[in-house]
């Protein structure tokens, strides 16, 4: 009888062992459209890749940078040949190549950033900034003295238009007569064009700046003239500590972590991704409104039981994130408005109030809460309504208060 028990135990252990072995290692390949040193989009994806790579033993990652959009299939072929079983493609232009590859390699899991085509083995994901831009807009509206806020835009596509409109709605909420002047540079990365555009906006009288471009140029040019601005994508505080008010920061690692862990645990497979679409915002921590992110110190030997959000062992937060640069705290606290929902309130308090509404898992506010009118006076979001996801990612109209050219305006 004892013998029989022993056999059973051994059999059970063997089975567990086999299952354990079955939980295979994941080799994830990342295909980037730009160079990892761009200080914007690609850089942020690569930082995220390194974070998840260090965090999990069962994960190995490789990446290829500067891949032209038409070449993505060739590179996917090479990654599959190298043994990648999960592939992330991080540019909208990779959409059809990734989709075709997903058909060709049914046993590989694909995830495509910012797209809309999905398959049983292909998911989509996006970390979006529109709430953050709205929060930045509130601050910009309070800080402008000329009533003109400058915005240097990369391309007039729905993503950037959504951000400018959300930003403008924020500006107008605290400063109903202010305008957001827009210049397009038609590049994701072009410091020279960004400098020119910023100088032109300064000449027009703009005195606060936000932008979409993958370098700190706008921040630097504005700072030279003593004008405040909002950092974009990567922390830009260090480039002008007295002039970066706040900014938009991304945390792709939050999405990569969730997605890869779910694959590792067998929740996501090559057969059930057709409806997996990450659209992650402030509530999920995929984006952050701050000039400087929190500094987290990681320790393999645990000294306290602080819950760990990053790499190895235990982590302690050394300094919290800087949501608002202290240099501008006074000005934002002194600027009070009579808010229809909150009565008399300072912009500083309004920012944190709104921030908490976004961060609440059951989000209780949206920048595009109706009624919203476009700048031509058309009602685009009826009173009491929020915009649907499809409307958000295809929006072409400009919010009231946007000034300047708007290609593709309906």
């Amino acid at each position, binding site marked *: 009888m004892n013998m029989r028990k022993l056999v059973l135990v051994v059999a059970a252990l063997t089975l567990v062992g086999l299952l354990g072995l079955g939980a295979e290692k994941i080799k994830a390949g990342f295909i980037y459209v730009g*160079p990892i040193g761009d200080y914007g989009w690609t850089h942020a994806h690569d930082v995220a890749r390194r974070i998840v790579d260090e965090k999990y033993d069962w994960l190995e990652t490789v990446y290829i940078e500067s891949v032209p959009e*038409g070449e993505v299939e060739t590179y996917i072929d090479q990654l599959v040949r190298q043994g990648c079983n999960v592939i992330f493609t991080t540019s909208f232009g990779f959409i059809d190549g990734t989709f075709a590859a997903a058909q060709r390699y049914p046993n590989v899991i694909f995830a495509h950033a910012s797209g809309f085509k999905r398959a049983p083995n292909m998911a989509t994901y996006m970390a979006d900034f529109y709430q953050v831009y709205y929060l930045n807009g509130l601050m910009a509206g309070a800080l402008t003295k000329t009533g003109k806020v400058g915005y240097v835009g990369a391309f007039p596509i729905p993503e950037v238009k959504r951000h400018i409109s959300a930003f403008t709605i924020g500006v107008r909420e605290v400063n109903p007569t202010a305008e957001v002047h827009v210049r397009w540079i038609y590049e994701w990365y072009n410091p020279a064009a960004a400098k020119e555009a910023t100088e032109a906006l300064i000449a027009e009288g703009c005195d606060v700046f936000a932008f979409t471009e993958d370098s700190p140029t706008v921040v630097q040019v504005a700072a030279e003239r003593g004008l405040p601005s909002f950092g974009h994508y990567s922390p830009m505080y260090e480039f002008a500590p007295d002039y970066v008010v706040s900014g938009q920061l991304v945390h792709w690692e939050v999405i990569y972590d969730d997605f890869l862990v779910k694959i590792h645990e067998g929740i996501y497979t090559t057969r059930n991704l057709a409806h997996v679409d990450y659209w992650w915002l402030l509530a999920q921590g995929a984006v952050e409104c701050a000039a400087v992110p929190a500094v987290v110190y990681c320790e393999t030997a645990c000294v306290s039981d602080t819950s760990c959000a990053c790499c190895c062992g235990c982590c302690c937060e050394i300094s919290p994130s800087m949501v608002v640069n202290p240099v501008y705290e006074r000005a934002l606290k002194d600027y009070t408005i009579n808010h229809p929902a909150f009565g008399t309130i300072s912009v500083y308090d309004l920012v944190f109030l709104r921030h908490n509404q976004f961060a609440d898992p059951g989000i209780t506010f949206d920048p595009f809460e109706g009624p919203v009118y476009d700048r031509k006076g058309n009602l685009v979001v009826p009173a009491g309504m929020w915009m649907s996801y499809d409307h958000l990612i295809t929006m072409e109209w400009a919010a009231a208060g946007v000034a300047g050219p708007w*290609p593709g305006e309906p």
Partner: protein
Amino acid sequence: MKRIGPFIVERRLAPPRHVVFGVSVLAVVVALLLAALVFWAYGVSPWRAYAEIGRGTLGTVDGLSDIVRRAIPLILCGVGLTLAFRAQFWNIGAEGQLLAGAVAASGVALFVPVPDGLRLPLMFLAGFGAGALWAVIPALLRVKLQVNEVISTLMMNYIMAYIVEWLVHGPWKGPTMRGFAYTDMFPTAARLPLIAGTRVHWPTLGVGVVAALVVGLILSRTRLGYEVRVVGQSPDAARYAGISFTVVLSLAMVISGGLAALAGVGEVAGIHWRLRSPSHISMGYGYTAIIVAWLARGSPIAAILTALLFGLIFAAGDLMKTTLGLPFQITGVFNGLILFSLISSDLLMYWRIRWRRRGEAWT
């Protein structure tokens, strides 16, 4: 002639073939040795690097087909450029002419109502026409107004790139692209067939090879070819003989620009199936083709070989990024080293060094 110690350095007027070939191979070997140093400095064993590159490019069907696919636009642009260069017309505008072809082909693919069977031929025709038109402008500017063609062809590249950018952001932006700057996908009838299991759009490859043969024949067997050579080698003699520069340069540029445009047709109809941002349609093929034509020494047939060489260099660069995990800058250094040695080896072809013979007088 120059004297350095016991050596005499003297100019060779027409280097023999074996010298050209030998020196070129030597240049590539030197470049590979230099690149080996870069690999080594980066912590990758040069042996392993070259073994991986060799296996990945020449050792597999995928690798070989990738070389050919990359060579297709280079063949078409390169062949056209050999003709222009023979006339000493420095066409730096193949990039813009390529894009002109891509635009015309996309227009036909998306907006012109024609029967399916005629769509692809019409795309090639329209593409050739657009490229020819774009290329003939600098030719006429040069003949009529003495505008330097290096500047005009180069500047016209930027104009065409911005036209493409404007089209995909403006009037041709595809309604199914959710606001992103791309045209809609081409209908199936406007897509080129591929060699099964590869991404090689063989019709464009066929057109390229035929074009090389035809341009070769034009240069060696026709009156136009003769006139092109005379205009190039001795403008004064050409003028004296009553050769019309307007006709010769215009025709040479119609063919040169038209062929570059066919490369653009092949890229949009064979690879992208849509018009998109210019930097993603052509990875500088029009510029690389200048070196392709230059290395081919003005021979359209040789341009096929030099185009394949550059297809190999591109493919090797891709492989370095993926298999060896080198940053893309190293790929650029690798390509640059090979180019640099090939171009500087020119000096060795046209000059030779020999011992001073006993009793030979210094001149």
